[in-house]
């Protein structure tokens, strides 16, 4: 009669019990399988790293134009290291570097590094910054012009891309990258060779000024999209800089 009819508050009929004993483990196994597949198929998050466990102290000349950068002399003939200075959160380093602009400083922070490119996150400005003695003579920035180039790739916010967020690129990360760049993190450009080798360029306007205000607004909609840019590429020490017109970015 009704012994095959399931009612939630009555004992489970045999017929249903036998079925559930098979069905429930099958659903459980399928769920584990789906979870395993979804997790194991994720793309490589990259080898960027934000070392929040230990601090790094660097000494060099700080400039704020185009962006806050610490120029650290290269050891033994290596090119001068250009370390972008930022702070915690999705904001740039303009605020805390202004008072020491042009000075020879020692600064402590957390290093973000990927593919040899570095940034320093200064958490406790100004206490973590001291104007250092034995300042070498000020020299103009040594710039090597590499000519006009057309680059294809992605506008990135280097903080996330180099390791603060892993992964910190592409469509899923577009809103976050836009927020970071709008907050003052210097925009960079990454290209990828056929072999997968990445090259990074710091972006400035055509005159070499940092992108701020309207120039930055013009760039923001293109952040994290596949794009093409054209500009004059310079080398400053270990850093490539692309001087470009932010209104001329083309989506691929």
């Amino acid at each position, binding site marked *: *009669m*009704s012994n*095959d*009819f*399931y*009612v*939630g*508050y*009555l004992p*489970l009929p045999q*017929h*249903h019990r036998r*079925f*559930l004993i098979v*069905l*429930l483990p099958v*659903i*459980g196994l399928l*769920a*584990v399988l*789906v*979870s*395993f*597949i*979804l*997790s*194991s*198929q*994720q*793309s*490589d*998050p*990259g*080898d*960027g*790293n934000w070392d929040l466990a230990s601090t790094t102290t660097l000494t060099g000349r700080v400039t704020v134009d185009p962006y806050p950068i610490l120029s650290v002399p290269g050891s033994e003939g290596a090119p001068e290291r250009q370390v972008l200075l930022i702070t*915690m*959160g*999705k*904001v740039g380093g303009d605020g805390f570097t202004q008072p020491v602009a042009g000075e020879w400083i020692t600064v402590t922070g957390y290093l973000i590094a990927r593919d040899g490119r570095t940034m320093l996150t200064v958490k406790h400005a100004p206490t973590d910054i001291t104007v250092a003695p034995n300042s070498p003579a000020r020299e103009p920035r040594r710039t090597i012009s590499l000519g006009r180039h057309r680059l294809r790739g992605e506008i990135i916010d280097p903080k996330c891309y180099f*390791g603060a*967020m*892993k*992964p910190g690129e*592409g*469509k*899923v*990360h*577009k*809103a*976050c990258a*836009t*927020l*970071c760049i*709008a*907050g*003052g993190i210097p925009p960079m450009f990454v290209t990828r060779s056929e072999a997968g080798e990445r090259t990074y360029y710091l972006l400035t306007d055509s005159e070499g000024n940092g992108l701020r205000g309207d120039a930055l607004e013009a760039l923001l*909609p293109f952040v994290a*999209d596949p794009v093409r840019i054209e500009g004059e590429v310079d080398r400053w020490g270990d850093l490539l800089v692309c001087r470009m017109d932010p209104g001329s970015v083309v989506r691929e």
Partner: protein
Amino acid sequence: MSIQYRAVQWNRHKRIYDLLLVAGVVLFIAVFMIVGLTRWQGTAAAHPVTLLMRATSSCAITMLSIILMIGPAARLSPRFSPLLYNRRHFGVTMFLVALIHGAVAVFWYHGFGIVNPIVSVFTSNARYDSLSGFPFQPLGVLALAILFVMAATSHDFWLKNLTPTVWKTLHMLVYVAYALIVMHVTLGFLQDDVSWVYGALLGGTAVVIITLHLVTGVREWRRDSRDEGQAFGEGWIDVGSVDDIELNHAKVVVLRGCERIAVYRHADGISAISNVCAHQNGPLGEGRIVDGCVTCPWHGYQYLVHNGQSPPPYTEKIPTYDVRVEGRRILVNPEANPPGTEVTPASIPSETSGDRA
């Protein structure tokens, strides 16, 4: 069922159901995290917050897909009905898991900036005029808002106060939420350079869900057109033979092309009641007589077969229909009686054996 509302009317099945549900969620997220954390290690590791965001989103969409399959599966075979019984807890749990995903996404991708995180979700990517660049996150917010309203109104208190019709319509929004989530993933995660497996799983699941709904829809449509009552003289409709109906079972018949009724055969003869359960519109004709009461196959609400009233202390009432038997034919008056009206069951003539069914 009663006029008093308790947070949950617990019973053994609900407890086991919820236990398995929570165990499933924990297992899913644990497997996802462990695989993610062991696959890329050291400086190559993915960030655990990103992994958590993805583990919870993957778990939530898997749960939602299962929820959407349970309905049609239970209509195709009553053997799935134990899964249907406590489906609202499945829904609320799924909402909570999706909420973690949404909250982590807002915190992680929109926090720490110069814009209010909630505002940033809508403004940081402003390419509303593009398809491939479309801001997929607001779609997730919209879906989450729908799931929230559904979870918040899932209790029988709301069911009663909103009326089952409004409630049911509200809960049909789950399909809108599902569509929004499919778009959220397609225009978001799938736009990046990711494994083909994701698109295949998302598309494959959607196809299974749609097919299941189509199959049940067609089946019911066929049954309705087959079991349509035929006019029999003035004011009566012939709904079939008593021999078509097994004892303590019902036959679902369509009257005048629209209303469905359940024609029950029971110890005292034949009775006809509305097919629509007063709880959540469950199909009463697919139920059984248990302890002398028509029992809904969905959550077990009961009605006395001769008056459509839930036995005391419960107070639900459904419409009844006048019925008589001519020879072996069952005749029903298509004018419904007000809910809870007593109708004497039509007795079945005893000259022939009625147990051919």
